[in-house]
């Protein structure tokens, strides 16, 4: 935090987002969430609380689910960032996206980007999570519409389809 003690000093940053180098000029203290949404127009990443308690803002940083609202832009460095916009490949949904669609695991859908990236990170670490591993890993994610049971099913479905080589 802080950049040569200049509270509102600007810096130039090059971020690796969804495989492309994107440059922004902003304060080093600005959050990654704000940079993605307000400067790069990658609005699939959502604001829900700004304090790490809802996970609507989840992105992958080097494959790890990360709260972009708690991540300042100057702490990103060379990390590879993947947002919800970066999961589709050549018009093909990822296994997790596909599973959320198949299960209808959303209502208003506002939590969905964060849920999908959280689940992607979980399945990367535990390809066959148990129910309690799913609950534990996803506990930080809020779905105010209360779609949790279907989201758990979607994570399981994605886990199965990955094994079968469906999706990615």
């Amino acid at each position, binding site marked *: 935090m802080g950049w040569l003690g200049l509270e509102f000093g600007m810096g130039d940053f090059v971020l690796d987002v969804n495989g492309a180098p994107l440059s922004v000029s902003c304060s080093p203290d600005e959050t990654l969430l704000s940079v993605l949404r307000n*400067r790069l127009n990658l*609005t699939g990443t*959502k604001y829900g609380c700004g304090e790490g308690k809802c996970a609507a803002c989840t992105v992958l940083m080097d494959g790890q689910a990360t709260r972009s609202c708690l991540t300042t832009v100057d702490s990103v460095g060379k990390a590879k960032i993947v947002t919800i916009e970066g999961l589709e490949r050549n018009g093909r949904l990822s296994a997790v996206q596909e599973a959320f669609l198949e299960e209808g695991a959303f*209502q208003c859908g*506002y939590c969905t980007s964060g849920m999908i990236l959280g689940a992607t990170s979980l399945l990367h670490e535990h390809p066959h999570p148990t129910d309690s591993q799913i*609950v534990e890993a996803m506990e930080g994610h*809020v779905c105010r519409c209360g*779609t*949790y049971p279907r989201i758990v099913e979607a994570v399981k479905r994605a886990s199965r389809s990955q094994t079968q080589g469906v999706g990615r």
Partner: protein
Amino acid sequence: MSYRVEPTEDGMRKLSQERTGMSGLDRRDFLKGLGAGLLICLTRASAAAQESGRTFGGHELPKELSAWLHIAADGRVTVFTGKVEVGQNIRTSLAQQVAEELKVPFETITMVMGDTDLTPWDMGTFGSRTTPTMGPQLRSMAVAAREMLMEMAAQRWHVATASLTSADGKVIDPQHARSVTYGELTRGEKLVKTVTASESLTPPKEWKVAGTAVPKAEGRDFVTGRHKYPSDISRPGMMFGAVLRADGFNATLESLDTSAAEKLAGVKVVREGEFIGVVAPDAFTAENAVSAIQAKWTVPAQPSNQGLFAYLKNNPEGGRDDGPQHVTGSAAQAFAGADLKLEEEYTVAYIAHAPLEPRAAVAEWVDGKLTVWTGTQRPFGVRDELMQAFQLSPSQVRVIQPDMGSGYGGKHTGEAAIEAARLAKAAGRPVKVVWTRSEEFTWAYFRPAGVIEMKAGARRDGTLVAWEHHNYNSGPAAIETPYRVANQVIQYHAAKSPLRQGSYRGLASTANHFARESHMDSMAHLAKMDPLEFRLKNLDDPRLKEVFQAAAVRFGWGRLKSTPERGFGIAGGVDKGGYVATCAEVEMDATTRQVRIRRVVQAWDCGAVVNPDGLRNQLAGAIVQGIGGALFERILFADGRILNPHFAQYRLPRFSDTPVVEIVLVDRRDLPSAGAGETGLVGLAPAVGNAIFAASGTRLRTMPMAPRNGLPGEPEPMVRS
């Protein structure tokens, strides 16, 4: 010291009854924008119903319209309705109903919703009204369109209309083995027909598209991040705004120094009367600028959680009580003579809707016309607010509601829209305002808190004879008992609310069901009867009986015996045309008094089911949302300040709180469809409370029942979650 009370849904319905259509708006531009094809308009006024076949190229539509539908030359169907999609899945379920009646593939339909320049006037999306009212309206239009197209085909082919059928967007002549698409029939012409409600809707028993689990329209956009919510809207040259908030409710500004904020690059401070805000080139700077403003406020002493319930009982709205709304027999006499009597008080706290997307708006002024993209359940209501705030005519304001990050009754008002419009006007550029979580918690409105006094009397054999139900402040929804009781007094007492309050999913139905169904449970125990048996004994309504029995069978009610570690409870009721019965299983830790909800079975009947998959999603969601208000959600406040305006302090239901949820749908294809967005919420709290009682013998009469901590100065909660 009383906050503006938001109009309740019932109140709004009364106010707005006479208004339909886009009165005052010049619709010529809109009509020019539509290509050739057939336009069907729905009106309630029968005088206007005879305009069949007139061209819509040059003239205005009748003013009193409630929906319209356009079939283009290429066969695309566009349906226009002022309702909004907020996650309840009506974009899909309404399109299904149009597809059903028009006999076109679901995919050819586009729903244009909640845009005040394009869609007919609509009161708003709340009160579970879309399915029972908008559904039949859209179906009527679709039937009229199909009939007109069949007549056109009959004329073209010189055959009798009755010899033709329609399917898949075509009129078919089976005798001559020929067909023509709807688009072809209209080609090159602009046809308009105004219709009133149709009698000849397809009976649900014959539904093929409606009644099925069609996946959510545009679902792919939600899993790819492509869908643009209100807070995602961006306009060329857009700036970012933020608003200075007072230190508390009813605060007075003592001093203000904006110089530090004004020094920031590109920042403009806007002050208009009580409104103080900033615009900046980016959101980060806007936030910094508003926190750089030095303001001193005086906040007067105001009520807090402590003593709230006494305050609500002692402060009737308007300083007087209007007397009971519903009286039959003599409750006092019957109560005096009853064998079994019980008198108790129940309370519900203020809770927040906490939609995951907070209030947001983008405002743009072009040549004196204001366009605002915002998240609201009442786009036309917000248009009215903007007209008033800026002295504009209806044609000078357009409100567009992109499908939003939900509302649950909490987004009836247009605060962010007005703020963005004010800032955009001052900046001369489009401006976006997105409320922070703590702004949403503090400056929106709450579900009303309330006190409910219940008094019941029964004969020794369990027959109810006296029933009194008094609700202070929380609201009149579903206040009347569905049980058979000869002597009743039922009264809602409006009170002055210390906090700003308004609609919430289900309104007071949740509070009234909590009190009534907890009290019924206590009465059953008093009569030494099984709680289900006691209810059925006092119930005539066959639909309510059926859901009670359906839930009980699936749950295993009667087989399951409560122990100190595990309790089973049941509750149910009817509201807004939806019948619900809920069974809950809770697990209790006898030492820590920790409660967990393990399993919930809910049976549901809302008439003919339009989309069973969407319905199950809504009902399971309502149950999960209901857990918060039942067990732990509560707004803490003192002296005009909200003390827990963050997710870290205001607990929301999460994955680990979620029980196994089983939904039993009673699909009544013989009955019209009712809405299902709200009433699925009301059974959970009493079912859980009754299960806790069954396990522990502790009767909990406060919502939330199991907060983590007690309030200052109050005993610690008897049960925790």
